[in-house]
């Protein structure tokens, strides 16, 4: 199969970028999107050009390194998969494929399609952890965890921190990511102890970093490769409100980075 690729090229954070057109031909429908980009890059290297920079690591949908905004959708047209799990059979022969980096004030472009997502790490550093070592695997039933909480926490913990939610959101809000982390920890006994502080710190950090406000368009949920639900955002709003309204000693005013 043959494709026309229109790819965002930008040499560095400081230089201006633009969309550049490329042709790839003889592509098998069964190869992955990244294998197709690998072929393009080999082609560019052979011609003495600069290969296209893009983020990838595990190529099996578990690390959260890959990104790409493909034809107007983060991680491309298939629901519930990362770009590395996308195959060329999802595109028709001769299709024009637009590939752009993720856009957010908090995700500056480093080069071509690579953006700096360390803002998400900074949010985790603000409170997305359990401060004490909670030890090895406890004996079954020594720490009671309701099955429903275990399931919900596990679903939230599936977030791989890719940032597609931010890329899809019309406001570039990071609420789905932050709420997944908040929920995952606060639903379990080891994380509950710090829940009141955690939610306030993580939200404060999120705001500082320039992410937008949630306007409940739910675009994030549709594009999330791990199908994280927006009910997590409601849970975070709930936790945040009760922390602000009812906690006495643990009120957090902004701490700076």
């Amino acid at each position, binding site marked *: 199969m043959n494709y026309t690729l229109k790819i965002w090229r930008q040499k560095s954070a400081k230089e201006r970028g633009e969309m550049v057109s490329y042709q790839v031909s003889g592509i098998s429908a069964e190869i992955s999107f990244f294998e197709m980009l690998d072929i393009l890059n080999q082609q560019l290297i052979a011609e003495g050009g600069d290969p296209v920079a893009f983020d990838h690591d595990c190529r099996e949908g578990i690390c959260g390194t890959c990104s790409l905004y493909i034809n107007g959708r983060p991680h491309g047209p298939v629901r519930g998969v990362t770009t590395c799990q996308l195959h060329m059979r999802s595109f028709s022969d001769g299709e024009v494929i637009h590939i752009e980096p993720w856009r957010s004030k908090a995700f500056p472009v480093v080069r071509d399609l690579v953006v700096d997502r360390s803002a998400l790490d900074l949010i985790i550093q603000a409170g997305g952890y359990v401060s004490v070592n909670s030890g090895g695997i406890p004996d079954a039933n020594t720490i009671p965890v309701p099955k429903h909480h275990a399931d919900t926490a596990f679903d939230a913990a599936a977030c791989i921190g890719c940032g597609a939610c931010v890329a899809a959101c019309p406001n570039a809000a990071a609420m789905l990511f932050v709420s997944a982390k908040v929920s995952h920890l606060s639903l379990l006994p080891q994380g509950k102890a710090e829940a009141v502080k955690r939610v306030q710190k993580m939200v404060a950090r999120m705001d500082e970093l320039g992410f*937008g406000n949630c306007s409940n368009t739910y675009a994030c949920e549709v*594009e999330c490769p791990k199908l994280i639900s927006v009910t997590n955002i409601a849970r975070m709003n709930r936790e945040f409100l009760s922390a602000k309204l009812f906690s006495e000693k643990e009120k957090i005013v902004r701490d700076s980075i």
Partner: protein
Amino acid sequence: MILFFSIALKTYCMNKLLQFSSITGKVIMALAGVFLVTFLGVHLGINLLLLSDDGGRSFSVAAEFMSSNPLIRIFEIVLFAGFLVHIVLGLVVSRQNRASRPVGYVVANRTETSFLSKYMLHSGIVVLIFLALHFSDYYFVKIGLVAPPEGIGPHDFYAMTLHLFSSTWYALFYMFCFVLLGIHLNHAIQSAFQTMGWNHTRYMGAVKVAGTIYSIAISLGFMVIPLYFILFR
């Protein structure tokens, strides 16, 4: 000295105001919005009296009650504050949202999600324009800032309404505004629930359906009145 203190106080307030977190801002906005949503129901109830066949008597009685009852006078101030808070926060939040993506995409977003939810600011601004018009048509006339149309008393809201809807263009614009208000509300009601943290798989479906029914009822309810005046008067 006084000047110095007032400037210091002002900067302090501004900093405080601009410092509330994204969630706090949205919650305040949602609370004000929900308050406005209930107000709309009351307002529609009174307006529908315009349709009763008594030459505007029941409508005038209700309007007179609303503008003289002291409890409702206090409520009016709360209502204005609600509008102000909602509108100011709506503009602030929308501006921050725009700023959070300084470089946009070449290809517009194609995520399959509620399409109109992205146009809350736009529908809100149409409602705001309507509010300005509505104030100059009624409220400013009532408090004597604007002269009523010739031959109509400043408290004769029934005659004012007849006068306004005698212009087909005015009636059409009025209906257009309420279509947009309906669009605003359709997203807004379930959105307010989500913002407050009241999203639960057990009832969110019902909230969405009820919100849509309410917004259609409000929108159609207000639109029926000019339609009636155009068609039957």
